[in-house]
């Protein structure tokens, strides 16, 4: 067979489209790599055992001794607590939407509300929660930070879960209903299991947003050099640690900001890989 090339506008269009798709991908990949490179190249030299095992000593922000253990522990507690609270609230909403009100007008309103909440900037959540705390007589505390992060994470987590739960074939829940299971039993025993990888992904997405957010915890959790001892203690966080260190005029402190960013990135990476491993093990039984 003779292969010949004919000039056809459709082929040109396809080639051009492919080129732009590749270009977009390269832009994204290059951004990711350059972010990692910046954080690694600037942060790694300043990263030390001292930095991750000590709290700031006097004059830390002027370049003296100490570390960011306060912010590491603070961030883990704030984001962990916020994600836990958000999970407890989001999963029932997502299951409710799927199980009882799937295609009704009511479900559309719930989804619209969540999408709007998703789009609200985090500083607005911070300001809102701060006003609420003032009214309730609460001061900047771990509890305040956890509540605001939960509020911030709920729309993300719920919509992400909702999208995966909607992918579940109707016949699968019918297989459960057919033996006389109720809708609630089906949701808990079948839907949650089938959607476990998706639920893990949704939780991670929300955790990532929560642990990386500076604006919402600025007024609500506050900042301190001490490790928090109770829900009512002010609590430091990594994004704010980065912000304060980067804002100093001292190059060695600015370098520590990059080291803090590296720590934050590593935490997200470890949590993400860990939960993916767990969900892969638990996901053996699901239909694909």
């Amino acid at each position, binding site marked *: 067979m003779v292969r010949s090339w004919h000039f056809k506008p459709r082929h040109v269009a396809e080639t051009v489209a492919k080129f732009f798709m590749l270009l977009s991908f390269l832009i994204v990949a290059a951004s990711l790599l350059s972010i990692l490179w910046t954080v690694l190249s600037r942060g790694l030299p300043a990263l030390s055992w001292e930095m991750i095992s000590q709290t700031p000593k006097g004059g830390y922000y002027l370049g003296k001794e100490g570390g960011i253990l306060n912010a590491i522990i603070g961030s883990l507690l704030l984001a962990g607590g916020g994600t836990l609270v958000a999970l407890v609230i989001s999963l029932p909403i997502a299951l409710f939407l799927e199980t009882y009100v799937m295609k009704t007008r009511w479900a559309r309103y719930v989804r619209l509300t969540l999408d709007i909440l998703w789009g609200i900037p985090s500083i607005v959540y911070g300001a809102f929660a701060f006003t609420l705390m003032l009214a309730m007589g609460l001061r900047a505390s771990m509890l305040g930070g956890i509540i605001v992060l939960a509020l911030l994470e709920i729309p993300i987590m719920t919509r992400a879960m909702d999208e995966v739960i909607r992918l579940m*074939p109707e016949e699968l829940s019918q297989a459960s209903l*057919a*033996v006389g299971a109720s809708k609630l039993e089906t949701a808990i025993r079948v839907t949650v*299991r089938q959607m476990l990888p998706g639920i893990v992904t949704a939780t991670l997405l929300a955790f990532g947003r929560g642990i990386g957010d500076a604006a919402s915890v600025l007024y609500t959790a506050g900042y301190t050099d001490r490790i928090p001892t109770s829900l009512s203690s002010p609590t430091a966080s990594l994004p704010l640690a980065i912000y304060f260190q980067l804002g100093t005029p001292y190059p060695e402190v600015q370098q520590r900001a990059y080291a803090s960013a590296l720590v934050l990135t590593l935490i997200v990476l470890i949590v993400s890989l860990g939960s993916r491993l767990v969900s892969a093990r638990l996901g053996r*039984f699901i239909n694909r």
Partner: protein
Amino acid sequence: MITKPHIEIRNLNTFYEHQQPALVNVNLTIPRNQVTVIMGPSGCGKTTLLKTFNRFLELTDGTRIAGEVLIDGVNIYDPDQDVTEIRKKTGLLAQRPYMLPMSIYENVAYGLRIHGIKRGRELDLAVRHYLEIAGLWDEVKDRLHAPATRLSIGQQQRVCLARGLAVEPEILLGDEPTSALDPISAAHIEARLLELKKDYTIVVVTHTLRQAKRLADYVIFMYMGEVVEAGHARQVFEDPQQERTRGYLSGQF
């Protein structure tokens, strides 16, 4: 005439949202411990009729149902009726088998656990018993705790059979239960259905005439949402009373 009806349908009409009625004035009796086959061309309402027996039709938004379906003389659409009890009484084999996201063992044990019927050693025995009835025990006895999704589609359909039978239904509904299967698996399922009719009332929807002839003791022929003809298999196949039944049996549509 049917002497011992198990299911009776009286003046049943169903409507899908914004559509024509799906079932029109259906009146039927379905005999106990026999295989009843519902046949007819695509879109004639066979599956809709079947779904009214386990109240699956109401899972589709916007459907309306008028009339009565009586199982053992009790109207299952009566507001006092517990829908989960009705579904426990009516096992279902769907067009495609869907495995619950758990092991083979747990798939069969699922209904028993839901209803709290059996536990421990009793549960093991029950799972074995129903897998044997479904003709699957020898193939899976060494990997009961493996994911059910790893089985072939034919084996999965037999897991569905075991899962349905485990909650001790009286009626077994099949919605084209062999249409997704290879011929050998399909023959396997048909053989099980013929064995099971001594203990269960079986209602099967099919669009293949040959399968209808192999399985049926009693036949319902539907067309455009109406029951055109219903009767004992030999009588309907050999001496149909209605013009449209004759047309269908001779392959006109």
